[in-house]
Every structure is written in C-alpha cells, then in structure tokens.
C-alpha cells in the first residue's frame, strides 16, 4: 500500500509524466531489468526467457489533470482539462499548479446565497471555472506560466480495504507491474516478459499507439474499470472485489479461457467485462495493432476520474498473482 501511496503523490499528468518516469525507470532497473525509454516517454523493461514467446504487460502511467490556459489580469486562472474530467468535481477543490514552484490554488465558487434561481442545479462548464491562487498576476508570472500542469491536491488515504486518491487509474496498474517485476527478480520465466508503461493514454491512447505494433505474442493490458455504483449501468460496472477480463471479438478467446481457468484453480474471483466495440483504452489499441493476441485485465475503481478514486488493494494483489501464475505455468509449445 505504501508503494501505491508513494506513486499517487507523484504527479504524472498526460504529457508531463517526467516525475513518475524517473521513479519507474529506477524501480525496473533495480529489479534487474534492462530498461529503455522511447522518444515519446514509454518505459520498456524486459527479462529475456528461453522460449521464443513474448508476453508484454502494459499499464499506462499518465493520469488526468488540468493545465493553465490563461492568467487573468486579477490573478485568477483559467484552465483546460487534460483527459476526461467531469467539471462537477472541480469547484471548491484544492489544486497544485506545477510551475517553477508548486503553487496551491482553490477552484473559486459562487456562494449559494448569491446564486440566481436555477443556477444551483446546473454544472458550471470547465471554461467558466476560475482557480484562485490568492496572488497577483505579476507575482504569479514569476512562478507559473501558460501550459503548466495542474494536479489534484488530494492526500491519498486508506479506508478499510480501500486506498483512495486521484490517479488510482492507472497507478493501480503500475503497482501490479512492479509486483510482477519484483517476482521475476528470483524467477527465470520460460517466455520473455516485457513491462511497458505508456504515456498519454488519457488524451487518446497516444503512447500505446506508437509501440503497439511491436513483434510480440501476447499483450496483457492492465487498467482501471468501473466499480458498481448507484445510478451507473449494471452491465458496465463490476463488484469492487473482483477482477474483470475483457471479452469481445478482438480479445483472445484462448488466453481469456486460460486465465479464467487459472483464476478458478486459485479461487480468484473473476468476471467478464464485455467490450464489443471501439473504445479508448490501451487494450483496444493493442488488439487492433501488430499481429499478436491481446487480453485486458481490469480492476474496478469507484468514482473514476475524480480526485477520490478508490480501489481494493486485495484486487490489485490478486491480479498480480494471476499473472504470476500464468507466467510460472507457461512452459512453451502450447
């Protein structure tokens, strides 16, 4: 849990992932893996196996956030979203502008007393939300500028089995990758295993699109999905204590069945997530690229794309276990 907490506190807004990149490169290198960074920032770490079969584990390492779009004369800041943000969750929140210095700001709100009839019920579009750093424009321009990324200043915390914080999507996936890398320190796999952490998933699967054509045999893509929540579609949400396997025409039937069987043998709760059409995930990108099989494994998250994303740590653990068993059992020739 401490490792995930640590990652949650390292901002990695899409396009501005440097901070977390250095951390991950170090972790993979420390695990004894040969680690490279692509021109776009994708991190690739590999352990060569004896048998000519390559399993690639992908998890994107960027997260949603905002960016400074304009600094008004009175020091208020206009913002633009990076990735999918519901403007409902912004007002009243606390933010950190990552400029030359870290500048704290709150999203200004209109007091309810002053709202006009009907105003309370309507969300404020993001373009009309102003961040208030309580500084003059002149003071601000010394420390921040247009284009600086903005991070949800929301301290992660544990609540029962859950860890809550912004960026669980997809630092939960990174936690799984690192757990498997740790396992491979003392295990020589039969297949070659590649860990790939990709950039800019949240702004249109850009990182994965540059590398998904590589010659591999199986891509296992790990990302967040939706936990069951009141008011959300029953068929698109999943119990928070299970993992979900993507099923659809473009995902490997063979490996999905193998993983389901393996989960059953080890009493790991596993449900099917039906993804029957085009979607904006790395798993989809891999499934339509290159010439390899693809499976997608998801961990359910509450309040996705809000500062308070919540995941069960034991689900992350079970996904890493399932993939470990899969690698352990892989004998080649199948």
């Amino acid at each position, binding site marked *: 849990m401490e490792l995930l907490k640590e990652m949650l506190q390292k901002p990695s807004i899409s*396009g501005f992932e440097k901070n977390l990149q250095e951390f991950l490169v170090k972790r993979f290198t420390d695990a004894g893996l040969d680690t490279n960074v692509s021109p776009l920032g994708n991190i690739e770490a590999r352990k060569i196996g004896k048998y000519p079969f390559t399993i690639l584990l992908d998890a994107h390492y960027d997260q949603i956030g905002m960016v400074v779009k*304009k600094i008004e004369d009175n020091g208020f800041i206009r913002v633009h979203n*990076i990735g999918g943000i519901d403007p409902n969750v912004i007002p009243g929140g606390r933010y950190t502008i990552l400029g030359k210095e870290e500048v704290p700001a709150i999203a200004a709100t209109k007091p309810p007393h002053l709202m006009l009839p009907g105003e309370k019920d309507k969300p404020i579009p993001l373009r009309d939300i102003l961040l208030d750093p309580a500084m003059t424009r002149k003071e601000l321009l010394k420390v921040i500028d*247009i*284009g600086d990324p903005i991070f949800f200043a929301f301290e992660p915390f544990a609540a029962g089995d859950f860890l809550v914080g912004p960026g669980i999507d997809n630092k939960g996936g990174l936690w799984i990758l690192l757990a498997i890398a740790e396992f491979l320190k003392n295990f020589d796999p039969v297949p070659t295993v590649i860990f790939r952490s990709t950039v800019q998933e949240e702004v249109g699967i*850009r990182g994965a699109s540059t590398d998904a054509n590589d010659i591999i045999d199986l891509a296992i893509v790990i990302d967040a999905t939706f936990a069951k929540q009141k008011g959300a579609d029953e068929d698109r949400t999943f119990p928070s204590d299970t993992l979900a396997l993507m099923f659809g025409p473009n995902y490997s039937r063979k490996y999905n069945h193998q993983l389901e069987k393996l989960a059953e043998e080890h009493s790991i709760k596993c449900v099917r997530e039906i993804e029957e059409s085009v979607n904006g995930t790395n798993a989809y990108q891999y499934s339509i690229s290159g010439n390899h099989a693809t499976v997608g494994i998801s961990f359910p998250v509450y309040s996705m794309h809000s500062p308070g994303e919540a995941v069960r740590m034991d689900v992350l653990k079970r996904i890493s276990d399932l993939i470990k068993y899969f690698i352990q059992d892989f004998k080649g020739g199948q």
Partner: protein
Amino acid sequence: MALDIKLLEKLTSAFGPSGREFAVADLVSEELKKMKLKTKRDVHGSTRVTLGNSGKKILLAAHLDEIGLISTYIDKDGFIKASPVGFVYKEGLFGNRVQFENGTWGVISSEKTYPKPEIEMHKFFIDIGAKNRKEAEKLLPIGTFGVFARDLVKAANGRIISKALDDRIGVYVLLKVIKELASADLKDTVNFVFTVQEEFSGLGAATSAFGIAPHIAIAVDVTDSDDTRENMYLNMRLDSGPAIKIMDASLISHPKLKEHFISIAKKNKIPHQLEVLPCGGTDAGTMSLVKKGIPSIGISIPTRYIHTPSEMISSTDVENTIKLLVAAVKGKIGGAL
C-alpha cells in the same frame, strides 16, 4: 523585413483544397527554384527541400491544403449539393462564392423560408447558373472539388484579411525561412516539408514523417486568436508574436522543445506567447505519433476567424515567426533534446 504581399497573395489565391494541392505545390517549387533549390514531390503531393546534411534530422512542416468542399449531387433543377472537405465553419457559408477545380463558379445559399432554416450543411446548395440537371452535369461532374474564393486585402495596422491563410501563411513563413538559410552552414539536417491533406486526415504529415523519420518534428500553422469582443478564454492575441504551442487537441508538445523555443525567443528578444488551444490540431499532432513517436511542437501564427473565407493575421506576427524559426534552425534545434 516587410511582408511580401505579392507572394502571399499568389499563395492564398492558389486553388488547393485537401487532395487537390497541385497548384500550390507548383508555386512552392517555383519559388524554391528561384533560390536554386531543388524540390522533391512524393506520391501524395507533399513537396520537400532539405538544407544541411549533418547532426539530427529535423522536419519543419507547413500544409499546402485549405478547407473546401466536394460536389456530391445534382438535383433536377441543376442545383448542386456538396460536402465539406475539412472542418468548414458553416455559419459563414451564406452568399459565399465557390471556385471549382474545373473553372466553374457558383454561389452558396439555402431556400429563403420563414422561419429561417437552421444552419445545417445539408440545407445548403450551390447555384452554378445551370438551368437543369443535364446542363449542370456537363459543367460540374459529381466529385468536383471546390474552395471558398475571396481576395486578399490589407486592413489597418498591418493586418491582412484573406481566405486560406490557414495555412498558406505557414507556407509563406517556411519559404522565407528557407530563403534566409539557403546558404547558411546548418548543424542539423533540416527537411522543410509542404504537406498535403492536413485539413482532412493529416496524410501528408504522417507519410512524410514516416519516410524521413526525423528526431524532431515542428509544424508551422495558425492558431485561434481569442481577442475579439468577448475576449475571454484563451491566451493568444494578434500582434503579440508567434505562439509556442504547449498543447491542443492533437498534441502535447515535448516539454524540452517548448523550453528550447521559449529560450530562443527570449535570447533574441522576439515577442512570443504561449498557446493552450482546447480544440483543433495540426500536423504536429500527427507527426508526434509516427513510428516510435517523434518529439514534436507547433509554432503558430495567431489568426482570427479561422476556417472562414476571411481569416485575419498581423504582419508583425508573421515577421516575428520567421525570426524565431530562423534563429532556431541556425542554433541547432537538434540540441534541444
């Protein structure tokens, strides 16, 4: 360095919707020939010239094409239906003149019904003066490309109004940069590419970047100048210099390239501004995802009324964009990463 209005006028008045950029490409080759430079044109029509032959490979792109339309149907009375090629700002269509690739002219309108029809593309038709379907079929076969025709005019304060400033002003800038640097001793291999089909799919940028496989890609294009009466949401202004793109809907510029261009502008005292554009994309976004990914950035000329037949730019912004790019190319862009 005053603006070469004659050249700009030639460029903007040339016919060149996405997929039919030949006339503009010819103009570019002609201009480069005057500088004793040889151009290469690829199978799609993208036209390129390379300066220098050492260091890192740089790709500097500006697109040849403009938004336009293509005829899709002729009704029994000889009126033409058409589809947009690229994102056409439909609010600006009424009463516009259309120039077709075969020399036919027409005017766009819709029925004068009351209440006024909602502005929807399918309600527009083009009147080419034909009396019936048979005559229209001769004048304008289905699938003929057209553009919105407007002359270039000079407005106050060195501002220019014209069609197709998106992106003929980028083409103009690159031609001037090449002229300045044609005999310079460059420390990079700089490929200047005049791309096709940016407004449609980015095909020219994607294929050129794939072929050249540069270390760094830069697109010179227009960006929204949000400084009219509402003047609310964006940072960009006319007369405040080239905009160094930080992000738009297609690209988050490589942070090191952003820093590099800001430092060059500061060092050479070139006015400049920073760009965060919520909508729209350029060739830079396309190029950034080619092969294993290419560190990319956009350098933008602030423009009002983009994608209408009357776009407006400021001459001083153009001059400063040329200065910025000349300084950058002279100073070894390859060292930025």
